[in-house]
């Protein structure tokens, strides 16, 4: 098994990496690139902690071969705030509603929540809960998380009025 060159654009920055074909995207993002906001937890595609956006769609980093993402645009939790440090509206809503307990599931929850609000600007509570089904919160802080996504939804609606 030989190392391969992998070109990735992560959070707007181009990387040329040398990796083995059996390396997983979550490990490359965390260890090779050093962006540890993305979490590793179950490793079997059950918990959603390793969620990253590949070409703007949420996927599981622990179930994706890094080589298969060649040429793709990767977005991690570190990449959603503005370059000047201004938080993404959903990050802001998580802070304002205290939707974070231990924080381990938060990066995945925010990326999936953003995906929902991009596709559906006015989701119901049921739609929110369905969309985050693949993300587990071991603190069981789901109510707060749903509240944060709702707040972001309402804030967005208000700004557009």
């Amino acid at each position, binding site marked *: 098994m030989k190392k*391969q060159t992998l070109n990735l654009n992560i959070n707007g920055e181009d990387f040329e990496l040398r990796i083995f074909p059996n390396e997983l995207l979550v490990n490359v993002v965390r260890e090779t690139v050093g962006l540890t906001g993305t979490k590793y937890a179950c490793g*079997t*595609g059950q918990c959603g902690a390793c969620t990253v956006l590949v070409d703007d769609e949420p*996927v*599981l980093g622990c179930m994706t*071969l890094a080589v*298969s993402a060649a040429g793709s645009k990767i977005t991690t939790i570190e990449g959603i705030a503005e370059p000047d440090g201004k938080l993404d509206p959903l990050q802001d809503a998580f802070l304002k509603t205290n939707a974070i307990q231990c924080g381990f599931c938060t990066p995945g929850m925010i990326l999936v929540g953003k995906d929902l609000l991009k596709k559906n600007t006015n989701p119901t509570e049921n739609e929110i809960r369905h969309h985050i*089904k*693949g993300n587990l919160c071991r603190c069981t802080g789901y109510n707060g998380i749903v509240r944060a996504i709702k707040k972001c939804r309402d804030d967005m609606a208000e700004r557009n009025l």
Partner: protein
Amino acid sequence: MKMNTRIISHEFDYHAPDTIREVLEMLDQHGSDAKIIAGGTDLITQMKMGKRTPSHVVDIRKLKDLRYYVEGAVIKIGAGNNFRSVMEHFANNVPCRGLYEAIYSIGKTQVLNMGTIGGNLSNGSPKADTAPPLLTYNARVKLLSLKSERLIDLKDLHVGYNKTVMEENEIMTEIQFDALPKNTAGAFEKKARVGSDISKITCAVTVTRDNDVCRNCNIALGAAAPVPMRAPVAESIMKGRPFSDQLLEDTALQVGREINPPAYGRTSVEYRREMVAVMFKDGFKRAWEQAGGDK
């Protein structure tokens, strides 16, 4: 069983060919040493567990030639379409409601983006959620190798627990079925441990209605036997008869009798038998309502 979920410990070469032909050549050349990867949600777990250790992994996810839909007398679905795409394609299709609900029930946003309909079927699991609704449509799958192309009935694809008739050098390229008759509707019911877990038991129903007469009631079950299965005896109770509550009860009981679940896995045999009858009734009622009849 060996299980390190953090890494894949065995070594392999990775290939991402640009054409189906190159994929087939690679499979022909490497035989059982090669394994196709599409979404990876099944294969990566199997590799982490050491259940599969291919020395060549052939990625078909980026092959556009496997992502298409054809509408008409025969509905064709490219095997490379991901779950999300198939779900959106059938979102407003009343006859194919069962397929939509089956994919919706998978639930997990990330898996909907990753997993493909062809992968779901060719992985061979009796728990594959897309299999029961497609079985009620009498679907066929197209299997392609370098030297042959064959169209087989989906009901003949699975031949045992996690086993299919697919040869090592074959890939699934298409799923197809005849357009469903009018006044047809379907439903899919599933029980799982938590929202996004793999199924404990599933039931798909597709009903064709002629006023109060049930012209056809196709029933298929997942995680109910070593392979996804139809329930022909239960179907024959309902078929061609005017609907009545008693008939529904009798059919539901027969569905429970007809399944052949293993005595291991995510739940007990007794639970599956009891639940599948209830699930069938719930699914049937929804489908029956939607099928409307000639009113």
